[in-house]
């Protein structure tokens, strides 16, 4: 395989951020080469410096960040666009941040798309205006011509009815359509290089799969090079020609995709791939436990639970139809069992979890919970005071440990709060119990006097878990409890939950959009789509032989961390029967 000519060469790049404690090196001596028509994936966990590296190329690092040394060579003559012109090599790192020279490169030679398309698009301009402006910035064309080019671009990124949708505003687009529009804007001037910074992270798996296919297709059409930044090994396996693994600002390993996946050299790469591969199958520990200790009686039985949201009251005389977030959902949870609820964003899975705990008032149905005292109560009919005893036995773990832990309380106060307000423990006894709980979730007792921001994401989630188990509960509802965490920490937290399940005899309702996590952790799975449960059954059965068309579509879109499986599966898109 003869190597394609290099388009961008990054040589010994160093980017530093000035902080109060001296400079912080976000990118430390990074070198790589992006070749024509190829996709290079920059992989790493949060804080590894992969985004800063990408931004350094275009010199759009947020202050106080600055490139300290190194070179970023753009071989313009090697790009698909500049092939006709003579040899020209520009060192982008040497250009002034605000110079017209670097501005001419941005958008025309190198375009960039970001993770969150909503915040990258201006909310007060139509999509057409924004794409048109991108064209007119670099090329001298009339407004009308720019608009026609924009429509053509929207067609290229497969937006239906492009000539009409172009006059809409970003908020009228769905998440996937917005990202398509962003790609259209990036392609406006036919760039030689596309830098994609986590372009699919905010999207659902089915939409992600479509966007990945789209980028691949556009790349083949235009001979574009793509620098793809992601934390998701599944996506890497799907799109990468070459892989570069980053950690703490350093490049630890790089090479072609297959060798990296099959014979990783560096310890960190091995660990990263190991935790990804581990996640995609059932936990052996869980299976062993279930064999010796099968799930018992039904603890919680949800019947035709319904929750509607009235978005606006409509006009004065007419009521608009409410949004039905949870549409007559029925579920059962047995003691010692893990039930997974999977669905895409907006499917109502989080609302369901909160409705069971009566965070929201419901619009019908019942939630029958059999307490420790053996009495079965319908939580829907209880008032706030009567709910207190039930909420001691049903606890919740939240998605974002940062926002679910009060930033102004110490860890001891946070974990002690439920015991204190329920009048269970005080003073010394409370302190001892908090220390015991911290030890159970694998944190040192010295953590007690510190505030949550002093901890990493994984440690914060452990604090959240300690708070949940403080009242000796029987059921824990975990709402996307591992989604905000890096892959390597995800398995650790899941194993901790399994460990606690054995020690404290817990049952879990685990809400997630991530099938791999559910497969590892849950015994049964319920698939939610637009407020309804479309399929329910034992996890392996549903994952291997999905019956409902939506489940099939969902599973077909999940990227597998195995590059050999690339393109072997047929992707289907589920359309709701009218």
């Amino acid at each position, binding site marked *: 395989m003869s190597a394609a000519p290099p388009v961008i060469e990054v040589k010994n790049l160093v980017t530093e951020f000035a902080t109060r404690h001296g400079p912080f090196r976000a990118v430390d001596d990074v070198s790589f080469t992006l070749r024509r028509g190829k996709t290079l994936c920059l992989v790493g966990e949060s804080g590894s410096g992969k985004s800063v590296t990408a931004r350094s190329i275009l010199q759009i690092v947020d202050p106080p960040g600055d490139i300290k040394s190194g070179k970023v060579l753009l071989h313009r003559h090697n790009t698909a666009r500049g092939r006709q012109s003579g040899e020209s090599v520009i060192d982008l790192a040497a250009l002034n941040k605000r110079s017209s020279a670097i501005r001419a490169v941005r958008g025309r030679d190198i375009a960039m798309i970001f993770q969150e398309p909503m915040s990258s698009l201006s909310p007060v301009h139509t999509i057409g205006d924004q794409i048109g402006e991108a064209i007119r910035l670099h090329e001298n064309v009339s407004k009308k011509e720019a608009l026609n080019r924009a429509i053509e671009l929207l067609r290229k990124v497969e937006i239906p009815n492009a000539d009409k949708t172009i006059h809409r505003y970003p908020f009228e687009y769905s998440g996937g359509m917005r990202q398509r529009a962003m790609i259209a804007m990036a392609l406006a001037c036919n760039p030689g290089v596309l830098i994609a910074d986590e372009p699919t992270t905010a999207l659902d798996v089915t939409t992600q799969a479509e966007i990945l296919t789209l980028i691949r297709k556009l790349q083949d059409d235009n001979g574009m090079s793509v620098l793809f930044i992601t934390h998701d090994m599944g996506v890497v396996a799907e799109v990468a020609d070459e892989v570069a693994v980053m950690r703490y600002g350093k490049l630890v390993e790089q090479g072609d995709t297959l060798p990296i996946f099959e014979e990783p050299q560096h310890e960190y790469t091995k660990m990263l791939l190991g935790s990804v591969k581990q996640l995609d199958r059932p936990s052996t520990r869980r299976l062993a436990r279930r064999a010796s200790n099968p799930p018992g009686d039904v603890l919680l039985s949800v019947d035709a639970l319904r929750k509607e949201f009235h978005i606006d009251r409509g006009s004065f005389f007419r009521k608009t139809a409410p949004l039905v977030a949870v549409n007559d959902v029925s579920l059962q949870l047995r003691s010692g069992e893990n039930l997974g609820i999977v669905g895409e964003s907006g499917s109502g899975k989080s609302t369901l979890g909160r409705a069971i705990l009566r965070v929201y008032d419901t619009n019908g149905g019942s939630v029958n919970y059999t307490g420790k005292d053996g009495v079965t109560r319908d939580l829907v009919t209880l008032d706030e005071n009567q709910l207190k005893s039930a909420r001691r036995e049903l606890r*919740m773990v939240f998605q974002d440990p940062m926002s679910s832990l*009060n930033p102004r309380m110490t860890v001891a106060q946070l974990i002690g709060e439920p015991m204190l*307000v329920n009048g269970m423990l005080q003073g010394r006894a409370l302190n001892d119990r908090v220390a015991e709980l911290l030890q159970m979730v694998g944190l040192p007792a010295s953590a007690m006097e510190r505030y949550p921001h002093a901890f990493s994401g994984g440690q914060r989630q452990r604090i959240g878990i300690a708070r949940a188990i403080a009242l000796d509960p029987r059921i824990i509802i975990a709402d996307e409890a591992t989604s905000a965490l890096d892959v390597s920490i995800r398995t650790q937290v899941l194993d901790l939950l399994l460990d606690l399940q054995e020690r404290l005899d817990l049952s879990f309702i685990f809400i997630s959009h991530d099938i791999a996590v559910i497969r590892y952790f849950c015994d049964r799975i319920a698939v939610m789509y637009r407020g309804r449960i479309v399929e329910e059954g034992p996890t392996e059965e549903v994952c291997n032989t999905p019956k409902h068309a939506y489940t099939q579509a969902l599973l077909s879109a999940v990227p597998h961390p195995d590059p050999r499986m690339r393109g072997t599966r047929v992707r289907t898109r589920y359309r709701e029967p009218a």
Partner: protein
Amino acid sequence: MWIAFRRHRLAVFGLIVVGLLYFIAAFAELLAPFDPDASSARAVNHPPQIVRFIKTTPDGGWTFQPHVYAMAQKRDPITLATTFTSDPSKTVDIEFFGKGAPVRMWGTFEVERRLIAPKKSDERFYLIGADRLGRDMLSRIIYGTRISMSIGLVGVLMSLVLGVFLGGISGYFGGWIDASVQRIVEFKLAMPTIPIWLGLSAALPQDWPPTWRYFAITVILSLIGWTELARVVRGRFLALRTEDFVTAARLDGCSQMRVIFRHMLPSMVSHIIASVSLAIPMMIIAETSLSFLGLGLLPPTISWGVLLKEAQNVRTIAEAPWLFSPGVAVCIAVLALNFLGDGLRDAADPYAQEGR
């Protein structure tokens, strides 16, 4: 937050000035050289005197001795206008921590020592002049600081209690409580402020003792002031209500009052401090304007507004411009508080900290 605040130079400067003003207000008795009510027929509209530090002796030597030249009053025999002329041969020596007429400190114990006092206790000096009864303006302004700066603080404190409570329940409970509180706020905001102040303070009985009047004026001022605070607090509550940690507190079994005061309020303390420090200058200005119009505090109470009332006519501008000096004090206080408030608000805003 302190680090972000320190980057705001003007705000730090404001903080220092505000601190100084409250220091003056607290220790007015020790800082003012004379009794603010002691009048003198020989010093009617006495102009300011310049402090000199070096005293020369006739033989050419010199000593460090702060002093002012005494001024002789002369009356024009035809127009009867009085003029003051400096007399370099007669000096009034000033000493630090000298003895003055005894006053009751904070109404409890007697003190004699002053920061600056004339060496001979029967002499007087007027660093920023005297008013039409020959009372020392410097001492009057220093005493006025106490009332003017505290009326803002006390008034804001009252609006704070009202605002946080009503804004809090409005934002937390929502629904009809929110709607009715907000309608009250809107109604209050729709009423023209100055006529209301005028009307209410004109309705106060003239024969009330000064302390009652003082209290009544603060109540009138804070009746208007709480609306803004209630809005700020409500907005923060609405934003915080959907945060996961508030849901978590509810699920922990906290009572609603505990959720509001233990979990939500601490996260907005910085915002409240910022809006309070922006509300104080409004109060100070309001008090000054009311007293200036003769509807707020009345003599013998001394506040900057009462002092400015002396400067209401054209004659003052022509003959004794130093009577405007309380206005300078108002400007300094209001500006310093505004700088401080701006700095606190910026420091409390998590979004403003990026890119600076």
